């Protein structure tokens, strides 16, 4: 078999594999960016000890222990607290003053993974005096990641970076005010999440569940293909109040999105958009 044919076969198998995951477990990765998902599934395939995606499909369908392992490859959990500090500084200095004018606030952290972004926002809102009137929704499709988010425990080795980011984000006081360190781990103050609802939610297949004032969805869209990015941004558009805010990742853009006209690019450098008043 030539290399070209082998690659075509492999891509057919990949497509069928994603279809099988969907039909069997209702996790829909069919609209994910193929290049990235293929790379991660090749790693999973090697780890699980299969030589083809068809073999992996067989294992996945018949051995229920395989899916949770696969989900950790299919959903990427790479995040840091206050990642891209400029984003959080811009929220603090330019967006929160707007949000202060509302009597109550709802914030949706979409694709919250293991919670780093949620805790960053909760700390930010506490520091700016908005915590008591804010409700946070933290959603993800990966139950394991949501459990980690709810626990709020991070490796102590990561704290130096988190601390530096917090300071660069204009943090008031020290990050150490918000966690206790023990046994190599930092356990974040559980009162930070007392106003948070953690929930399983898929940007691919679920619909809007609340009206919100701010959506923060960073480095999630980059895993989606174009049509799925359109769907996700459409959900955010629907969920946001008029003149509500949308923050996305530093390298993400609405430029190629079907809903680009529904938003104004408020702070282009920090990728913070505002929903238009007439939408």
């Amino acid at each position, binding site marked *: 078999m030539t290399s070209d044919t082998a690659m075509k076969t492999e891509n057919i198998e990949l497509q069928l594999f994603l279809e099988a995951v969907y039909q069997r477990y209702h996790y829909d990765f069919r609209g994910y960016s*193929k290049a990235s998902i293929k790379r991660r599934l090749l790693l999973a395939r090697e780890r699980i000890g299969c030589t083809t995606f068809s073999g992996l499909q067989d294992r996945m369908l018949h051995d229920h222990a395989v899916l949770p392992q696969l989900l950790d490859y299919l959903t*990427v959990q790479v995040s840091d607290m206050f990642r891209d500090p400029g984003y959080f500084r811009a929220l603090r200095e330019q967006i929160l003053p707007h949000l202060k004018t509302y009597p109550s606030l709802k914030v949706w952290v979409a694709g919250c993974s293991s919670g780093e972004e949620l805790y960053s926002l909760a700390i930010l809102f506490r520091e700016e005096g908005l915590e008591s009137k804010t409700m946070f929704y933290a959603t993800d499709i990966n139950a394991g990641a949501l459990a980690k988010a709810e626990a709020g425990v991070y490796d102590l080795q990561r704290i130096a970076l988190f601390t530096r980011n917090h300071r660069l984000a204009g943090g008031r006081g020290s990050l150490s005010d918000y966690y206790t360190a023990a046994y190599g781990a930092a356990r974040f103050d559980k009162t930070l999440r007392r106003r948070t609802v953690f929930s399983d939610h898929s940007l691919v297949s679920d619909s809007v569940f609340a009206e919100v004032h701010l959506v923060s969805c960073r480095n999630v869209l*980059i*895993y989606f293909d174009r049509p799925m990015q359109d769907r996700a941004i459409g959900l955010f558009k629907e969920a946001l109040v008029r003149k509500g805010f949308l923050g996305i990742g530093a390298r*993400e853009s609405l430029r190629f999105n079907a809903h680009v006209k529904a938003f104004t690019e408020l702070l282009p450098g920090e990728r913070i958009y505002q929903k238009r008043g007439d939408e």
Partner: protein
Amino acid sequence: MTALPLHGCLREPRAIVIGASAGAVTALSRLLPPLAADFPLAILVTVHVPADKPNSIPALLRTKCRIAIKEAEDKEPIVPGTVYFAPPDYHLLVERDRRLSLPNEEPVNFSRPSVDVLFESAADAYGKDLLAIILSGANEDGAKGARAVREAGGIVVVQSPDSAEARMMPESALTACPKARAMNLHTLAELLCACGGTVQC
């Protein structure tokens, strides 16, 4: 078209990928300025850069080049006559619909962006229509990717280790792809220009 300096290889690539690390600025400053503004191919470049500050290389090269130079954006369609750089702290991948993806997965070979990640995805998207170039660098990133390009039928050329500021990256690529041609920057520049059908170097 001026004869390609790649003997026995008359295929015309439809895209070019370049990987480099230490010594990248010197090498790219030789290779990219001769290219015409209407160079007919897209060039995708992954250079190892620090994660926590802006990449200064595109701006530096923009002052010296006629071909358009930019940092890649997520889901951006690939346009010929443009050099796309992987941004700091993100991998750069090519989708099969010829758009760019910038996932934020774990580092590979301690690198994000990683040359292997770019090359493997480009090999998948372009198959035999790809020219991959490994330049100077002080680690082994790119070797696996170069092999993937070869296996998909693409062309791999490598900056000769003796002419590179850091020889480990080209040497590792040559070990992984023993049939890849090694050449100095002057010959590499000629090769690149020839891909555009005009030699102005």
